[in-house]
């Protein structure tokens, strides 16, 4: 199994984020700073900082991995241990499944990630763009990353479009071409990002993952 391919989506995500942000600051943003107000690049810098901070923490923070149980914990033979164990939570009966890999009954809302080969508490999903599981400890950073990224993309799209409209008579110049590329790329990528952000807003509102 080539380990390099696991990192590839995350590498692309970081590359796209950093390159488009850098291009945005260097080309359209400079014009806004000179002709409109310093507040625009300043606010954009703050949003970018949030995006990078949340993206980093979602990537590097342990999701809530439960370490594999050592053999001395398993009193019953692996074969004889029932697959499910019932437990009562506030009067509701919940089934806990035996995890063959980790050798314990999975706590409620815990799930086994096949990519990382570990059990994760309050497991949401394994995100390839972040190259990490999203679970109890880093869900808030992942969620805030989606929200701040949506905000950042909306801002980049809007300001770049405004810049294009203001410079429509100078379409062959480099800043205008770059803005056009930014508008196109961000416009296309905003569909999955906004969709995922909206989906998670609904999940959080309903208290489900």
């Amino acid at each position, binding site marked *: 199994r080539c380990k390099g391919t696991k990192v590839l989506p995350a590498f692309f995500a970081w590359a796209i984020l950093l390159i488009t942000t850098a291009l945005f600051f260097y080309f359209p943003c400079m014009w806004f700073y000179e002709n409109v107000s310093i507040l625009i690049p300043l606010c954009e810098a703050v949003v970018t900082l949030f995006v990078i*901070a949340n993206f980093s923490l979602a990537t590097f923070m342990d999701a809530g991995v439960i370490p594999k149980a*050592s053999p001395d*914990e398993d009193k019953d033979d692996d074969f004889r241990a029932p697959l499910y164990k019932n437990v009562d939570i*506030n009067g509701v009966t919940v089934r806990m499944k035996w995890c063959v890999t980790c050798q314990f009954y999975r*706590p*409620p809302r815990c799930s086994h990630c096949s990519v990382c080969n570990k059990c994760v508490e309050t497991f949401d999903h394994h995100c390839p763009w972040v190259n990490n599981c999203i679970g109890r400890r880093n869900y808030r950073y992942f969620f805030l990353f989606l929200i701040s990224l949506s905000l950042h993309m909306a801002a980049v799209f809007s300001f770049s479009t405004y810049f294009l409209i203001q410079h429509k008579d100078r379409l062959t110049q480099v800043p205008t071409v770059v803005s056009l590329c930014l508008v196109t790329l961000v416009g296309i990528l905003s569909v999955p990002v906004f969709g995922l952000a909206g989906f998670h807003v609904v999940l959080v509102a309903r208290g489900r993952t």
Partner: protein
Amino acid sequence: MLYHRVFLKSDARARTLTARGAPSPPTQKVFIQRDYSEGTQVRFQPKFPSELEGKIEREKFEYTLNTLNEVYAEAEKMSCSSCCEGCFACLTAYLLYCCSDTHFEKASPKVAKFIIEQNERVYVPRGLLIIDPVERGLRVIEICIFSDNPASTPARNN
């Protein structure tokens, strides 16, 4: 890697327990499971296990368990201060976490200190040893039972 760490730490503690020289592994281990009856928060069953009958007084065991449960409940409690800490951390781009631990992480050293103190005063003199549940991913509290009570047996020659 964590699996080896658990064994190394248990072994190290087992060796310090039998200060007379020969390290002896525990003859039995009791595992106190999580108590989910009131929800998914961290809480261990305060029921007295039958394997400890005659080895330790019920009240002492219950005191240990209840205190641990209280520390964890306090750590997970949502309060104004923990919300503010979260918001402030977000506003500083999480640089706050370079300087201080989260509200929950502050419970870990408290639990560790309490367990060391209980082991020294109550459990080790009775031939028992409590292992911090954090080493088992907060799933179970492990209690090791050693067959020889070091306080009562004379030095053995192996």
